[in-house]
């Protein structure tokens, strides 16, 4: 918007522009839009629109065919009452965000002649218009989807499709939603232009845009709040009528208080080091501890709520956690070691590189099939035969649902092993071994590239000063490689959430789903059980987790990674 504005004659007082120049600029814009059009269209249809569509699917009972709208029920069956809590938090978050936006804009307009209060009219109308557009698409979508069912295979003609499409747009509810949207768009355009006419400054334009997003935040927050309250009340009343303790509100209050206490404790903790005297410092720390412990106890309600959800999801998440803890550290340290060995320019290092990289380029299904045979439960299978040569018992490997620590304890004769300490199942451990085998080559290549980027002079200078090989690694090479390590860690964490192909090939009925990471759990829900709505809701829970991790990551990033 900003780049475009000075070109408008009469707006910035630039009236003397030549028509030819004006035409040239517009042709340039048009070229740009045309060049990005195909990619943007494809990414929109298959990358952005599906997110909204998945949300739409996830609030339905949708088993192969679309059923009724059931609101948050899919989410409550997955994560229990936590679903209400999260939507509630989202609504409050939107409102708080909107509040800070308003305050910021109000302050930024203090020194300008623009009237903040008047500008809110176009802002609110713009936000209402965009929400009206969303409502129209949501009302229209089911009608559009139904067209496909109304076209019998044989009579597929363009005319029939166009006719059905026209009908879909003329359904009474759609028409009603559309006219509301049109009125809002018209009104907001008028208000927008009036606002621009009154104060012709770029600040005005920008503030109107920001105010529109702030009002959209208010709208979304309000709608969510109303909706989640209604859903919660229905649930509550049902529970009361059935004579069960609903427990929603105590849980809500307890956890919200807990989170707020934790937040306050954290803030106090952060400011503790600014205190002038040691006594005050410790007093602060003590205060923070009180808040944090209190908050922690309140949040302790969480596992109880979560236990009411779908165990498959938690099993999947636990498997994902084990999978990332069991692969990433090993994979990274082995590949760093190999990269340092290869970096010495030994004769034949090109050959070693090529061989180490081989597992990564091999098609996954093929290499996973090999591993499925290597780690078979047959006594004659290679790994079991190897164990026999060493004088050990053969194992069930991919067929084994029991945890590795449990198995170890069992072989040492410990009877009462606690179930929480079972660890990943042996089947999952085989999948981890496969994963390390595949990705060590990739990580080594990236580490070698990272090593190549470290200036030689640094380690040479250190060696001249008498630093040992170990010291050079500890104080120069390793810190200089931290961006590479960081990049590889991120890539690998993303990889564990995405992990699918090899697990799909190596998962066996006998392992009782202990090797299914989160992506596999979602895919089986969708592909085998045909619960589209439920699987979409699960995918959104995964999305929420990934967003949370991204947020944490952005908090940690700056402090720990050294970008030379």
């Amino acid at each position, binding site marked *: 918007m900003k780049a475009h504005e000075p070109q408008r004659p009469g707006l910035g007082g630039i009236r003397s522009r030549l028509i030819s120049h004006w035409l040239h600029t517009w042709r340039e814009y048009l070229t740009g839009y045309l060049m990005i059009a195909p990619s943007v269209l494809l990414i929109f249809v298959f990358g952005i629109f599906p997110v909204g569509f998945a949300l739409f699917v996830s609030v339905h009972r949708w088993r192969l065919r679309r059923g009724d709208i059931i609101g948050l029920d899919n989410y409550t069956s997955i994560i229990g009452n936590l679903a209400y809590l999260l939507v509630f938090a989202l609504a409050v978050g939107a409102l708080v965000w909107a509040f800070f936006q308003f305050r910021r804009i109000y302050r930024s307009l203090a020194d300008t002649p623009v009237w903040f209060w008047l500008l809110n009219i176009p802002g609110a109308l713009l936000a209402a218009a965009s929400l009206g557009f969303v409502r129209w698409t949501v009302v229209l979508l089911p009608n559009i989807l139904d067209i496909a069912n109304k076209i019998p295979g044989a009579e597929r003609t363009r005319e029939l499709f166009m006719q059905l499409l026209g009908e879909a747009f003329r359904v009474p509810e759609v028409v009603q939603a559309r006219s509301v949207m049109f009125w809002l768009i018209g009104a907001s355009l008028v208000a927008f232009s009036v606002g621009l006419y009154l104060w012709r400054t770029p600040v005005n334009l920008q503030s109107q845009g920001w105010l529109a997003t702030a009002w959209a935040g208010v709208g979304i927050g309000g709608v969510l709040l109303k909706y989640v309250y209604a859903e919660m009340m229905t649930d509550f009343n049902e529970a009361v009528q059935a004579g069960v303790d609903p427990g929603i509100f105590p849980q809500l209050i307890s956890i919200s208080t807990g989170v707020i206490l934790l937040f306050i404790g954290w803030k106090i903790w952060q400011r503790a080091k600014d205190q002038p005297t040691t006594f005050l410092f410790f007093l602060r720390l003590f205060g923070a501890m009180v808040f944090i412990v209190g908050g922690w106890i309140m949040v302790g309600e969480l596992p109880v709520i979560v236990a009411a959800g779908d165990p498959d999801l938690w099993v999947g998440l636990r498997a994902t956690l084990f999978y990332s803890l069991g692969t990433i550290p090993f994979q990274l340290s082995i590949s760093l070691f190999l990269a340092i060995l290869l970096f010495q320019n030994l004769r034949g290092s090109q050959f070693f590189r*090529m061989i180490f990289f081989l597992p990564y*380029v091999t098609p996954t299904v093929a290499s996973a099939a090999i591993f499925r045979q290597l780690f078979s439960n047959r006594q004659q299978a290679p790994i079991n035969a190897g164990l026999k040569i060493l004088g050990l018992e053969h194992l069930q490997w991919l067929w084994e649902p029991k945890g590795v620590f449990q198995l170890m304890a069992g072989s040492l004769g410990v009877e009462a092993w606690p179930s929480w300490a079972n660890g990943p199942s042996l089947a999952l451990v085989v999948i981890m071994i496969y994963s390390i085998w595949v990705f060590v080559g990739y990580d080594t*290549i990236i580490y070698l590239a990272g090593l190549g980027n470290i200036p030689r002079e640094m380690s040479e200078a250190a060696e001249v000063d008498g630093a040992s090989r170990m010291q050079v690694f500890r104080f120069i090479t390793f810190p200089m490689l931290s961006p590479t390590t960081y990049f590889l860690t991120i890539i690998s964490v993303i990889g564990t959430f995405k992990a699918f192909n090899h697990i799909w090939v190596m998962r066996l009925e006998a392992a009782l789903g202990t090797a299914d990471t989160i992506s596999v759990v979602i895919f089986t829900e969708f592909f085998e059980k045909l619960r589209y709505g439920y699987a979409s809701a699960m995918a959104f829970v995964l999305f929420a987790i990934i967003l949370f991790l991204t947020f944490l990551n952005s908090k940690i990033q700056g402090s720990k990674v050294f970008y030379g």
Partner: protein
Amino acid sequence: MARRPGSAHRHQKPSFVILRTIFTYLILCVGVCIAIFPFFWMISTSLMSLGEAQGTRMIPSEIHLENYVDAWNEADFSVYMWNSTRITLLTLAGELTFSILAAYAFARIKFPGRDLIFTILLSTMMIPAMVTIIPNFLTVTWLGRIGPIGWINNWPALTIPFMGSVFSIFLLRQFFAQIPDELYDAVQMDGGGHLRFLWSIVLPLSKAPLMVIIVLSFIGTWNALAWPMLVTNSPAWRPIAVGLYSFIGEAGQRTNLMMAGAFIAVIPILVLYFFTQRQFTESIARSGLKG
């Protein structure tokens, strides 16, 4: 042996250096053995008779090449292979064309909303595939029902969704933005426009990032399993990964046939890898060099 310039300063005993070199090679060789063993076992098992493949032998007593013929006939590997090739080529053609155009516009043409659109595109990289796979399946089914050509069991479902690639646009944009403006001014002097500049100057300079995209997209299409499994239910357009997956189920206990099938599926990519090995590894290394 160690040709590191640094070690000259250290006046170590030559015997120590030799010992260290031997030790290094020893470790590397162990690594090679671990990396190679599954391949060795696959090839050797694929040449055994059924009885031997069930036993503990490592080397076949006699070579049974007919396993390959059996595997090839039992699962239409020729069809699957051809399908994967077709899918890869179609996807690549679309992906390269669209990404090059978009990356050029994002890097070198100024238009209102450019940075906003680019940020929105980048933020889609965070969306997990499992969120989009269900609605995309519904969309593709819908498009196939209403449109002139079917999408399920046909090339559009397998290729079109992958033609818009944020990663490729991002990678190319980074590269295109580094090309000096003077070159464009020179082309403009000659009366050429953006497309001519793109075709005659920018693309010849960008062989490296284009190679990265080709390699990664090739590995991606050759490995894809979940999506092709959803949108194909007959061998007509089924790619090699899905074909091999169903063959593993059919082969059951016949390990020798299964390994022969796996080897057939691996051969084309291995041949390609051995011939373009340097570009392969360099492309991968470059794709990771963002930090």
